[in-house]
């Protein structure tokens, strides 16, 4: 804890300073405000083609069929409670970019170029009815997308007390 730490020397001097270059190599996260988004862009049409090639096998031809996680809400956007997809459950559009870039395709994670990721993100947001089919997605416009689920999310309000919540 902090208290324990204070009884220790101010610095041990183990480890080495991180250079900006080596941090940049690892620092792939993208935040809700767009921090971390790379330059470049990609549109839904490009993304659709890549999707068909690299994603459809696991997520279905239209992102609704599986066998793996459903990505597209489809017609049921306002209906069925049990569907959890980008269009009705994801609070931030930036997460789509971040996650695809770091973890997909599942069999070749980290293999996509930034342009491909922009395209795929544009395609999936478009398929969820949240982005125009023509306009290329980039670091500037991606964070501005308003996600339908955004206001559903509330921080944990359990108080670590006796209440069952």
């Amino acid at each position, binding site marked *: *804890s*902090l208290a*324990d*730490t204070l009884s*220790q020397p*101010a*610095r*041990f001097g*183990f*480890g*080495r*300073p*991180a250079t900006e270059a*080596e*941090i940049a190599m*690892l*620092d*792939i*996260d993208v*935040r*809700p405000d767009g921090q971390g988004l790379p330059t470049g862009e990609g549109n839904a049409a490009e993304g659709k083609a890549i999707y068909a090639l690299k994603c459809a096998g696991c997520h279905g031809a239209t992102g609704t069929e599986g066998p793996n996680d459903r990505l597209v809400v489809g017609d049921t956007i306002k209906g069925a409670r049990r569907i*959890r997809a*980008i269009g009705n*459950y*994801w*609070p*931030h559009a*930036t*997460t789509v970019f*971040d*996650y695809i870039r*770091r*973890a997909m395709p*599942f069999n070749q*994670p*980290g293999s996509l170029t930034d342009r491909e990721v922009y395209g795929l993100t544009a395609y999936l947001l478009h398929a969820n009815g949240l982005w125009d089919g023509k306009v290329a997605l980039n670091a500037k416009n991606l964070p501005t997308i308003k996600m339908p*689920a955004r206001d*559903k*999310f*509330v*921080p*944990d*309000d*359990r108080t*670590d*007390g*006796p*209440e*069952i*919540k």
Partner: protein
Amino acid sequence: ASIVLVQTASGKAFQAALTASELAGDPTKVPGVPPGALGTRSPFEKPVKVFSETSSRTPLQDLQGMLTPSDLHYERHHGGVPAIDPTKHELVIHGMVDKPMVFTVADLKRFPSVSRIAFLECSGNYRGAGDGKIRPQEICGLTSQSEWTGVALSTLFREVGVSPKASWFLAEGGDAAVMTRSVPVHKGWDDAIIAYAQNGEAIRPEQGYPVRLFLPGWEGNANVKWLRRIELADAPFMTREETSKYTEAVGGGKIRQFSFTMDARSIITYPSYPAKVEKGWIEIRGIAWSGRGKVVRVEVSTDAGKTWHNAALQEPVLDKAIAAFRYLWNWDGNPTEIMSRTVDETGYVQPFLKQLVAARGGNMGYHFNPVTAWYLQQDGQVLFKST
């Protein structure tokens, strides 16, 4: 022994040794296996995890006491277990810090170390079965306990000079999922550990070798394994795991996020399905834990929840740790339901399933820690019953 005469070198005849058939199967008559470099598990014991594509579950019903053998520790990963060379693995800490730093595994081991015995649990750790044919392993086998050793994250925070304005940090793994979770900075100062050892030895690959984040009492997924990077920031990063996953509907159309604390829980591991018991004395055994602090009491009911009795807790009862409990009971052979519930130091009482569902607006999901009942049939068969 039959009397057989044996001719010795000196020409005398003696009664022979016992015959081979007399010795067969008697371990006192054959020299055993000499000492070796590594111990073994008896071929008569085959405890195994039940595994799917995404997780594997500790055989709670096969275990005693409060520790989990490392190779039976539950697994949950999102991109498989990476093969990491510890001499190539580094932890980078950057963002809102004075001095962004890179630490090798060897560097981390030079800092002051801390150890604690604590549980780890996946927040998606409840299953039932309509026909009652389900074991503790399947019900809640995504919980295990080890002694964890590593460097306090607070020590590293001080080393890099974390900004007083930093309120969250991103923890990122070096696995194929490049797993990321946002964690409040206060947990880092409080009791988070960058752990490199488990039950004395190096952390096992499935648990994050060579280093993982360990957040005592907090949901498993946030305890990022194969940790390679920590970035300090002033807001959460809203990663996929803390938005699309590990969030739960709590009624009124709301979705709860950042529900880190693992609530108090228990399960009776003996007797449990598929055991069959006899009437007479039965020691009811189980495990209890709470991510909020210490277990102060485990209550056991042998009459379907009408009356409750305090079980004995195995010492030492530790903070944010599994405690073994025991309750001696004389079963009269009449069908009944037995169940246990944990009361922790915050006064929280482990709820029934129906209470939990009601409290969450009718939804099920992560952080489900209901009382689990076992129905004892007339014939001694033990079956799961949801509460």
